[in-house]
């Protein structure tokens, strides 16, 4: 009886502080933003307007197209990171001499601030003076307008994001690979498995937990991405690289606070709709393997 009482006391008091912080700083803002997204508000008044903000958000091409761009951006960066980082990690855990140096070189882009990366790549991708085009022209190619061509601009930014964000995924993979018991590989090589078969049948399945973290992290990061796009194109040319976050920022800057709040709610719902089922699915997959 006594031990039971102690058990129930202990977690309650431990949870309350974080529950209060969560409630005040996370739960309450979410609820109020739901209300304010249904109003036209400024810092003094709020006028209820029903679903008008949402209707406007989805009826105007400049804003609704941002949902598509966000999805392309998030899935594009996430898939590339998951795949490329896997091979880099395999390479960096194999028996090579300059392993330590290459590991730091791969991690280096992550130490630079997003804004600095965005600005430097915007200069490098300049249509006439940029480094990339100088190289292309040196080898006899035609200059490419990486950020000024609406068909290319979003993909140019995705490439930069992958360059910068790859390292975190590589580190997670390396940690995962190193925790795999070496005896599996020994047993497999005695049985005559090639290294590709070892990667496919031992490394890949046992890496599932690391891979799941990478997928979730990079996908959510991609869905709410802002700084890189803002510094490289500002959402332009026209609206070709506008994502949810940049549209929300622009509406806020224009003084359309209600519309901007509605955009935030749309973003919250979009992220939840993608992240929760995905997490569920990935957990299932992980359990199945184990």
């Amino acid at each position, binding site marked *: 009886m006594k031990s039971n009482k102690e058990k129930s006391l202990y977690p309650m008091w431990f949870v309350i502080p974080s529950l209060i912080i969560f409630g005040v700083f996370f739960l309450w803002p979410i609820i109020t933003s739901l209300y304010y997204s249904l109003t036209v508000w400024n810092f003094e008044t709020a006028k209820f307007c029903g679903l008008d903000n949402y209707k406007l958000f989805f009826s*105007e091409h400049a804003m609704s197209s941002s949902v598509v761009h966000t999805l392309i951006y998030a899935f594009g960066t996430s898939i590339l990171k998951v795949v490329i980082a896997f091979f880099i990690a395999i390479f960096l855990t194999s028996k090579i001499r300059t392993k330590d140096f290459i590991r730091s070189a791969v991690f280096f882009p992550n130490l630079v601030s997003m804004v600095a990366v965005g600005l430097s790549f915007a200069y490098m991708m300049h249509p006439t*003076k940029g480094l990339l085009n100088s190289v292309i022209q040196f080898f006899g190619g035609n200059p490419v307008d990486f*950020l000024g061509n609406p068909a290319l601009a979003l993909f140019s930014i995705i490439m930069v994001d992958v360059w910068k964000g790859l390292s975190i995924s590589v580190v997670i993979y390396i940690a995962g690979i190193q925790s795999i018991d070496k005896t599996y590989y020994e047993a497999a090589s005695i049985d005559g498995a090639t290294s590709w078969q070892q990667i496919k049948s031992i490394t890949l399945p046992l890496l599932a937990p690391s891979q799941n973290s990478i997928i979730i992290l990079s996908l959510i990061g991609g869905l709410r991405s802002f700084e890189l796009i803002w510094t490289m194109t500002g*959402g332009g*040319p026209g609206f070709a690289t506008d994502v949810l976050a940049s549209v929300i920022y622009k509406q806020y800057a*224009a*003084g359309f606070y209600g519309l901007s709040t509605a955009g935030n709610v749309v973003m919250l719902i979009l992220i939840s709709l993608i992240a929760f089922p995905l997490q569920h699915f990935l957990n299932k997959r992980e359990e199945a393997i184990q």
Partner: protein
Amino acid sequence: MNKKVLSVALCGVMAMGIPTVSAVAEEKPYEGVTLTMWAGNAEYNEGTKAVMEAATEALGMEFQVEINPGGSEGDNIIKTRVASNDLPDFLCYNSGSKLYDLNPSRAFLDISDWDMVEKFDDAFLSSVTIDGAVYGAPQSSTQAGAVIYYKPDYEELGLEVPHTWDEFVANCQALADAGKTPIYFTGGETWATQVLFLGDYYNVAAAEPDFAENYTNGTAKYASTPAALRSWTKYEDLVDFLNADKSAATVSDGNLAIAYGDATHWFILTQQLPMIIAEADNPDDIGVFGVPGDDADNHGLTVWEPMSFYVNKDSENIDAVHAFLDFYYSEEALDLYFETYGANGPSCIKGYELPESVCNAVRVDMQAYFDEGKNTPALEYVSPIKGTTCEQLTTAVGLGQMSGEEAAAAYDDDCKKSAVQLGYEWE
């Protein structure tokens, strides 16, 4: 003994020194006051700095300036600061429609009873007056949204200043045939791409005198008013004449391109003139003409009122700001400003003549439009409504990624959003 005499003498000198110092301090009534200001780089220029130094010399106040990053980032910052009551003592911001967005009656001091207001001309005053209250004082001269061009190219090919849009396009073709870059487009700094559209308003107003009123009421639309639609389709005519780095070029690139003659024309606000002329070999190489319309006899200029100084209503240093601005509009300070920095256009101070050192582009080319009465204030001084995605649309049309009709229709929707926000009932 000698040391004692010396120390007594030194004490005497020091004692005499103290009253002299305090007498100087009394002549400078604002010694020790530091005024905070928020302004963009174009406003906090060499001329403004020179006048501020002179003011520190004469009145004693010091200045601390925060730089406005410009464009929509700047708008965002200042709107947030107005809303959160976190303003400097005074600041520089647009006059006209953008002033409405700042909710001026709440944030800024009504300066209509200050003497200096009598010096400002009516066109300027109407751009900073809301419900009878005057909020702003002009930071600089007027300016125009016009074509700044490199004259030696015109002389070399024997071209004339065009008075119609067709003549202008023909000139561009001739320049392109001669291997020159006819037009500079700065897609890397989107605000600047609006100038052709906004500067074409003289021609819209000439064809449809009621456009501003009907547009404000929501009855006239860009997509359905032929003269207004023309402002958008003009971009289409120029797509083939632009610089190679059109999507990334910035306004600073544009200053250099026109100053060195790397490109011939640039649709831009004439606030860039002082910066272009500072780089040019010969100030007379640079000229200005208004955006051409369809009537050769009615070629006019769309005029912008200058950025204005606004005074924080809750500032503790209102007297010092008042004294500084009184000083700013004295003949000597105005001369100092325009001689140091140059002018963007004719001055909006009544009875004041720009000094001889100001370039011919302003004193001859632009002044001619004013003398003939062929100028009209830009739409943003006549109507409070301006769509917020204007600069994205003009960039997209300018780069040939969108047709003029599409952009006009999108802009109409965008204006509706702004109108609703300002409390207009548009259908």
